[in-house]
C-alpha cells in the first residue's frame, strides 16, 4: 500500500506580519505516493497561499496546524530543507535571475539537493532529453534563468526543473494559466513524463481544467475562501467544469452564517 507523502492537518495560515490576514482556515488533506490531486477553487480562494505555505514561503505564516512530509514534521522548515526532502513547487510567476544560466542553476540545485558531486555527462544527456520532451530549444540551457522568457517558456522551464529535480511531490501552481492550447499539451506531456518516470505525487492547483484533460486524477479538492469545501475523486473535475463553483460558494457562506 502506498505511503502518505504529504499530510496537512488543520492548517491555518495567512500573510506574515500582517493583522487580520488569515487566508487558510483549518485545511486538511492527505496525498499518498504517486497520487495526483487537484486543488480547484474560484479566484481568491487561497489556492496559491496553500501552495506557497506548503513550500515554506516566508511571506506566509502558519497560524496553527501541522504539515508532515515524508514522515517529518516540516511545519517550521525553511524552503530549501523541504526541497531537499523531495518537495517541489512550480511557480505561477517564475522569477527572473539575471546572470545565472539555467544550466548552472540546475547543476547547483541538484548538487545542493543530493549533496553529491554531479555526473556532468549524464546530467547533460538527461537535460537534453527533458528539453526535447518539452520542445524547448537547446539554447535555453545557456540563457539566464527565466530572463526574457515568454509566459509559456517560463512554465516549460518550471516543468524542466521538475523533471531534473525529481521530487517526491510536485505542487503545480496554475501551471496552465496564460498558455495556448499547444503549450498546455506540451506541459502536460512533461507532467506525464514525471508521473511515469518518478511515480511522483502531484498536487495540481488550477482554476481551469484544460491541463487535466490528459492526466489521470485521483482526488479533487475544492477550496473556497480558505475553507476546503469538498474532496472527491476525478469526476469532481467534470462536475465543476459543468456547474462552476457557485454551489460551493453558497455553501461556504451558509457555513459561515451558522457559526
Amino acid at each position, binding site marked *: 500500500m502506498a505511503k502518505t507523502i504529504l499530510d496537512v492537518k488543520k492548517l491555518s495560515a495567512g500573510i506574515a506580519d500582517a493583522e487580520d490576514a488569515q487566508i487558510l482556515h483549518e485545511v486538511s488533506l492527505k496525498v499518498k505516493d504517486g497520487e495526483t490531486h487537484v486543488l480547484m477553487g474560484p479566484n481568491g480562494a487561497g489556492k496559491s497561499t496553500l501552495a506557497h505555505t506548503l*513550500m515554506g514561503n*516566508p511571506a506566509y505564516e502558519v497560524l496553527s496546524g501541522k504539515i508532515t512530509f515524508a514522515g517529518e514534521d516540516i511545519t517550521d522548515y525553511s524552503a530549501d530543507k523541504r526541497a531537499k526532502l523531495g518537495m517541489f513547487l512550480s511557480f505561477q510567476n517564475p522569477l527572473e535571475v*539575471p*546572470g545565472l544560466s539555467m544550466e548552472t*542553476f540546475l547543476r547547483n540545485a541538484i548538487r*545542493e539537493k543530493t549533496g553529491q558531486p554531479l555526473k556532468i555527462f549524464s546530467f547533460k544527456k538527461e537535460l537534453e532529453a527533458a528539453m526535447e520532451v518539452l520542445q524547448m530549444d537547446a539554447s535555453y540551457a545557456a540563457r539566464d534563468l527565466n530572463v526574457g522568457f515568454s509566459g509559456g517558456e517560463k512554465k516549460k522551464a518550471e516543468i524542466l526543473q521538475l523533471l531534473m529535480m525529481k521530487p517526491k511531490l510536485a505542487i503545480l501552481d496554475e501551471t496552465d494559466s496564460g498558455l495556448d492550447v499547444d503549450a498546455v499539451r506540451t506541459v502536460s506531456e512533461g507532467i506525464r513524463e514525471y508521473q511515469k518516470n518518478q511515480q511522483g505525487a502531484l498536487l495540481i492547483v488550477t482554476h481551469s481544467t484544460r491541463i487535466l484533460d490528459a492526466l489521470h486524477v485521483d482526488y479533487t479538492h475544492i477550496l473556497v475562501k480558505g475553507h476546503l469545501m469538498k474532496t472527491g475523486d476525478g469526476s469532481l473535475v467534470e462536475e465543476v467544469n459543468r456547474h462552476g463553483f457557485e454551489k460551493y460558494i453558497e455553501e461556504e457562506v451558509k457555513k459561515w452564517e451558522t457559526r
Partner: protein
Amino acid sequence: MGDTVRDVDRSLYDFRYDEDDFYRIESGLTKDIVLRIAKEKNDPAWMRDFRLKSLEIYNRSQVPQWGPPIDGLDMDHIATYVRPNTGMKGSWDEVPDDIKNTFEKLGIPQAERESLAGVGAQYDSELVYHNLQKEVAEQGVIYTDLESALVGEYKDMVKEHFMKLVPPTDHKFAALHGAVWSGGSFVYVPKGVKVEIPLQSYFRLNAKGAGQFEHTLIIVDEGADLHFIEGCSAPKYNEANLHAGCVELYVRKNARLRYSTIENWSKNMYNLNTKRALVEEGARMEWISGSFGSHTSYLYPTTILKGDGGHCEFTGITFAGEGQNLDTGAKMIHVGKKTSSYINSKSISKSGGVSTYRSSIQIMKTAKGAKSSVDCASLMLDSRSRSDTIPAMDVRTSDADVGHEAKIGRISDEAVFYLMSRGISEAEARAMIVSGFASPVSKELPLEYAAEMNNLIKLEMENT
C-alpha cells in the same frame, strides 16, 4: 530573513611583513623630500625638474570638494617613498623570501606560469620582479619598469608621453603623483604585433602609512593588440594609506588595447587614481574595472576618442561594504567622427556602504555621427546602504545618438524563495543572485580573477 551578507572577507590579503630594513623616507611632502626621491631614483634632470614643478602645482591646488570626504588623509603622515631591501629581479628565486611569499600567497608566480606572457610585481614603491617571455620579447614588445625605460632605449618615447595625457595641472593628486611617482610599468607594442596572452603587473603596498604612486605607461602602436592586467592589494593598518597612481594608455591607429584591473585595497586606503586613454583612428579601447577594497575611491577612467571611428567600452563593477565610500564611473570624450562608446557599470552596496556611479559623456562639435550608450545598475543589499547615480552628458552635435539607462534595485525576497524552493540555502541563493548581477563584468575578467571575485561574493554571503 536575516542579513546574512557580510563584508568582503579580506583575510586573504591581511598579512604583512616588517619593513625594518627598508629605506623609508620620512612622512610629509617638502621640496627636500622630492629632491631626495629624485636622487634615490637617479632621475634624469628633466624628470627632477618635472617633479619640482609638480610639487609647486600640488601646493597651490585645492583638494577636490565635489566627491566623498578625504579629511582622513593627512599628507604630513604619509610616507611617499618606501624602497624594499632588494633591487629588481628577473627570477622569483632571487626575490627576498618575505616579499616572494607575499606574491606567492596572491598567486602571482602561479598565474605567470599558467597564463601570462609577462609579469611585473611592485612592492611598496619599487618593482621587485619583472619578466617577459622570450617569444614576446622577440616580437619586439617592451615591458619594463618605468625607471629603466626612462634611461633606456625608449627614453625619448617615455619623455614624449609621460604625464601628457594626465598633466600635473589636472588635479591636486595628479600633481602629487608627478612629484613623488615611483615604480610602475612601461609597455610598448610595436606596429602590427599581436600579443596573444596577457601581460600583468601587480602592485602591493605593504608599508604602513605609506603612499603608492606607480605610473603605468602603455603605447600600443598601429594595428597592434594587447591585453594588460593590473592587480592591487594591501594589508590593513589603522593608519591611512594613499594610492595615487596614474595610468596613461595610447592606442594608435587600428590598434586594440584591453586593460583589466582589480583594485582590492584594504579599507584604510584612499584610492585617488587617475587613468586615461587616447584612442586614435579606428582603434579600440576596452576597460574592465573592478573596485572592491579601499576606504574611499575616486576612480573614473577617461577615454579620449580622438581619431575617427574609434571605439571604447567600459565594463566596471564596484562593491562597497561597511565604512566604504566608493565613487567610481567613467568618462568618454568624443572628438573624432563616428566614434562610439559604451559604458556598462554595476554597483553593489551593503552594510552601510556608499557607492556612487559618476560618469560624463562629452560629444564635441567635431564628433559627427557619434554614438554613446550608458547602462548602469545598482544593487543594495540592505536599507542602510546607499547608491547614487550622477551621469553627466554634454552633447554639442545635432546628430549624436546618446542613451542612458539606470536601474537601482534590491534582492527580492521572492527570488530568494524561488531559489530556496529548489533546495538552495538562503545564503547560497543570495550569493547566486549577487554573482548573477555581477556576471556581465566577471565573465569579462581573466579566469582567475573571475573565480576570485565569485569566491569573495560567495564567502561573504555564507558568513553569518
